[in-house]
């Protein structure tokens, strides 16, 4: 009886030869990531140590990463003070994987972890962010946890009482048609599975369309796996994983990858052929309210947002820049672009994409979470609609419950910015 990738990773991390779905294990954590919500983790962490007489120190500072991204630069004294407290904690604990608010090494947590080679195939990664599933793109088992659970990980170095999840095998065949890509695939899959179709389960991706996909596209897939409720999304490590980690992240050490056994048990198999896939749009107010682009073409859009941990990488910006180059954003529509990291921003400058965007009338913002979670910039007016390459369209997600958010690929977003309404980039 074989194991899935998730089972193999959890077995290794729990020091067991074999586990199967449903068993309870306590895996050692290889990487523990937080962003500004480390402020709450620190509070809970100190509570854990209260009355023990022990000094509150994280179990292994080399395995803790903290990245400021949600509110950068700080939008309020409260956030700035939280960030200040976190900096003090980082210094006191000697946490080196710390990315402050900077134009060079700053960025969104789910971009920074791959970019700096912090995530490797086979790792157990936890993060106080639901989109920690992103890191399955590099063959890791990565899942989101709450702040109190992170405090427990910082203290014990383990995730306690984890139920080994069942795995859904997703086999993706065919070549993507022009202007159709990973974002359309994951939206289609979420539409098929529903917002809770993979709750407590893992999505393990296979097939020729995955083998031929860049790590950037795989991050978009795994990032949004949680929108179907998945605990984790995993692309088993392969040649592309090793290429990315060597060439782009500068990793020098050996990179062993974890493959599922041929006789692993899957709870379900889903097959998708992308050769006939149409561009997809998730409509308000749930991510599984997915429609074909043709069904929503013409819908008036007041703000187009391109960026985030889902689609703010160089290939995403290239796809959008190719469409807006030499053209103008429609009057009455705002276009906001926020690169996923300082490194991506610098590359977009070198390639001229930033000029393309600005000449077209777009506003290019600093890298970070920006308008994605409706905190401090890019808010929507009452009754307005946004079209965004981000990953969530819940009511109020972009800061105003009286607005609407549609989700799509960078190509659809860019074409729509020019039209002032949802438009087909192939037209």
């Amino acid at each position, binding site marked *: 009886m074989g194991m899935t990738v998730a089972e193999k990773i959890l077995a290794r991390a729990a020091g067991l030869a074999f586990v199967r779905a449903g068993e309870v294990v306590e895996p050692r954590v290889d990487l523990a990531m937080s962003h500004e919500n480390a402020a709450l983790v620190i509070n809970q962490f100190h509570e854990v140590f209260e009355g023990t007489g022990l000094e509150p120190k994280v179990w292994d500072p080399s395995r803790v990463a903290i990245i400021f991204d949600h509110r950068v630069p700080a939008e309020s004294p409260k956030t700035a003070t939280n960030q200040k407290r976190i900096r003090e904690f980082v210094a006191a604990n000697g946490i080196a994987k710390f990315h402050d608010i900077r134009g060079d090494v700053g960025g969104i947590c789910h971009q920074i972890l791959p970019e700096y080679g912090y995530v490797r195939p086979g790792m157990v990664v936890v993060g106080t962010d639901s989109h920690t599933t992103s890191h399955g793109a590099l063959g890791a088992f990565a899942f989101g946890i709450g702040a109190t659970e992170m405090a427990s990980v910082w203290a014990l170095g383990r995730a306690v009482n984890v139920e080994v999840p069942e795995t859904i095998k997703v086999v993706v065949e065919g070549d993507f048609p022009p202007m159709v890509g990973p974002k359309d695939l994951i939206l289609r899959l979420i539409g098929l599975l529903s917002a809770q179709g993979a709750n407590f389960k893992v999505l393990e991706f296979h097939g020729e369309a995955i083998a031929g996909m860049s790590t950037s596209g795989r991050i978009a897939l795994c990032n949004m796996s949680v929108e179907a409720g998945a605990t984790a999304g995993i692309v088993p490590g392969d040649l592309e994983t090793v290429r990315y980690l060597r060439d782009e992240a500068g990793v020098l050490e050996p990179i062993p990858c974890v493959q599922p056994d041929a006789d692993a048990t899957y709870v379900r198999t889903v097959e998708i052929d992308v050769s006939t896939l149409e561009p997809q749009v998730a409509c308000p107010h749930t991510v599984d309210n997915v429609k074909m682009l043709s069904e929503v073409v013409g819908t008036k859009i007041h703000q187009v947002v391109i960026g985030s941990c889902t689609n703010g990488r160089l290939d995403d910006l290239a796809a959008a820049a190719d469409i807006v180059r030499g053209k103008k954003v429609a009057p009455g529509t705002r276009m906001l672009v926020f690169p996923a990291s300082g490194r991506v921003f610098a590359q977009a400058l070198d390639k001229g994409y930033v000029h393309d965007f600005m000449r077209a009338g777009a506003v290019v913002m600093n890298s970070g979470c920006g308008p994605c*979670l409706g905190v401090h910039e890019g808010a929507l007016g009452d009754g307005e609609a946004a079209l965004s390459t981000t990953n969530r369209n819940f009511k109020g997600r972009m800061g105003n419950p009286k607005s609407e958010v549609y989700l799509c690929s960078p190509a659809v977003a860019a074409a729509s910015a020019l039209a002032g309404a949802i438009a087909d980039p192939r037209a």
Partner: protein
Amino acid sequence: MDTVILKLGNDISTDDLYPGRYMATVLPAETPQFAFADRTEFNARLRAGAIPAGSIIVAGENFGCGSSREQACSTLKGHGLVVVAKSIARIFLQNSINLGLKVVLCPGLVADEGDELEFTPDHVLNRTSGHAYAQVKLPAARQGILDAGGLIPYTRKRLMAAHGMPGPAPVG
């Protein structure tokens, strides 16, 4: 016996429970003011203390989907609210157990606002309609945390045991 104070549909997100713009407020003592902040009328009743502790929110499938923000749990717990849902998203369910927010899984429940509910170990009784509905047990893996009174005391015990310190034996 407690009253159903709010009935909600499927896919209630953490943005609904605790909007992202209040996320800089983190401490459990401070988060309750922003519970359901965008449902202004309900939020006002909560803040006015007009809703007694133990009051029940009845919800459909996938309650608490979305972000991992723990404020979505602490904000409900601060008002002493109880959640009964057909199903609950993974991270929210774990956060609830970790923080001690009372959540009950009851896929078949039929109840309306104003109904009186009672909980037995295995059932939810709707005293208004006279019907009983089976509960689905919380994941067994988490029982040790529930028994310890939450993840903080649970972890504290484990930590002390790991340092060979006297104290209660490690749970689980």
